[in-house]
């Protein structure tokens, strides 16, 4: 049976179903809509692993990613959003979430499906 994540990151497996997303806009939406307790649980697990995960993926190289590496990358990208909720906004996150839909992400280098351009 193939692994869902590279060896050493099994603790993150329960989070793949929720936190894998194709675009920055989707990741931002997950930050806003996933219940706060689930968001905090994901953060507790991924934050201490992020440095090591990036080292390992850097060593592998983007061009050589298999499905497990790609899953780990997607979780790290979700951490880029969730980390801001937990580490920057903290108890203000709910208030902050109300402001975010006003500024829509339309494009990011990590997006797997590139959106249409949106300059006026």
């Amino acid at each position, binding site marked *: 049976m193939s692994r869902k994540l590279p060896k050493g990151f099994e603790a993150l497996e329960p989070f793949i179903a929720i936190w894998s997303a194709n675009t920055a806009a989707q990741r931002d939406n997950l930050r806003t809509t996933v219940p706060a307790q689930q968001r905090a649980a994901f953060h507790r697990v991924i934050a201490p692993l992020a440095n090591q995960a990036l080292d390992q993926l850097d060593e592998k190289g983007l061009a050589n990613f298999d499905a497990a590496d790609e899953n780990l990358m997607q979780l790290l990208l979700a951490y880029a959003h969730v980390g801001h909720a937990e580490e920057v906004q903290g108890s203000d996150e709910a208030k902050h979430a109300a402001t975010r839909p006003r*500024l829509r992400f339309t494009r990011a280098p990590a997006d797997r499906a590139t959106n249409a351009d949106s300059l006026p």
Partner: protein
Amino acid sequence: MNAESKAFEQVSQERVAFLGTRPIPAKPYYDADWFELEREAVFRRSWMCVGHICEVPEKGSFIRRELEVLKASLLIVRGKDEKLRAFHNVCTHRGTQLVEEAQGKRTRFSCPYHMWTFGSDGELVSAPDFEQFHVAKEDCALKQVALEVIAGLIFVNFSKEPEALSDQLGDLVTQMESLPVARATTFSEYVYEIDANWKLTYDNFQENYHLRFIHPRSGGAACGKDNPFGYPAEVDFHGDHRTQTIWSNPDASAPAVQELGFGRTIPAAMEKGLLNTDAGRKYFALFPSFFMFGTPVQNFVHVVYPISAEKSRGVIRLYWVDEDGSASERFGREAIMVTAHDVHCEDTAVIEAGQRGISSGALEHIHMQTQESLCRHLFNVVEEKVHAYQAERNGS
């Protein structure tokens, strides 16, 4: 004592005394008649940023841009001769808009109505039964708009013979060219619409007085004991344009996600020579409504496009050199984008609250302090241009 440890000194009133100290009239921030004057006096005569050359990399690449303030649709095309041109997206037969797609690649642009077909240089190539017309083909080229590229950014100007933007900017061009944007091949983007006048929206981003109140969590590194309001270390004025040098709190510590995000992009940025700039803390505010923050690993451009007297649109882009080269770079770019986005999200509600207050007509004037001198400068320049336009129109 080196520059890093030097105590913060705020910009003195003497430095900005030439801008005056009068209260600023409130009406130009909501009045529809004033906005109509700005359309002609400011926006039809100024350079506006509409994109980046990385969007039109090859012969035939094009982008379409809508500029509501001038009721204009523009087609920006790289011709067969590699030259970049801007045209009105308007068929010269009977005015139909030629292109609906936001971007693409073509060698010909055909009007859907009667199939008049134009080349990537704007010339009319063919038109069915053209012999029936009473005009020469060479007089039917697409109407061109002045275009200039600075630091990879595409600016357009609707004046017939505008002063070159590079001449207006002088030394700022070299500084802008030293930033990643000048070599960018891709970007992140987020956009917003706001129920607020373009100046009121823009002003929010050229003063730091509000930082500690509106961004108590996300703006931490911008304020400190020496500088509790996060005022700029320096401001400068360049004709209609202006800059400020952002002060950073040397004692601030970043949350782990930001430390990881910024830290993981620095090796690649260093390898690409992106850290070699003197403009790394500079905020470029180009008239009328363009910003660029110079930080090499968070080099973002923010343009506020007016829609009406009380409605605007913002487009924010973070420019990157090369596609993601590693997992670290991919993660870092996403995290750095979210850092900027978190700050910008916090501004919209308070800008709209300001607009509602001003639009109520309760105030005849608003007030700007010494550390809001960039806002005062913008208003002074706008007012001067509107008055000059009125005088020109009245023949005086």
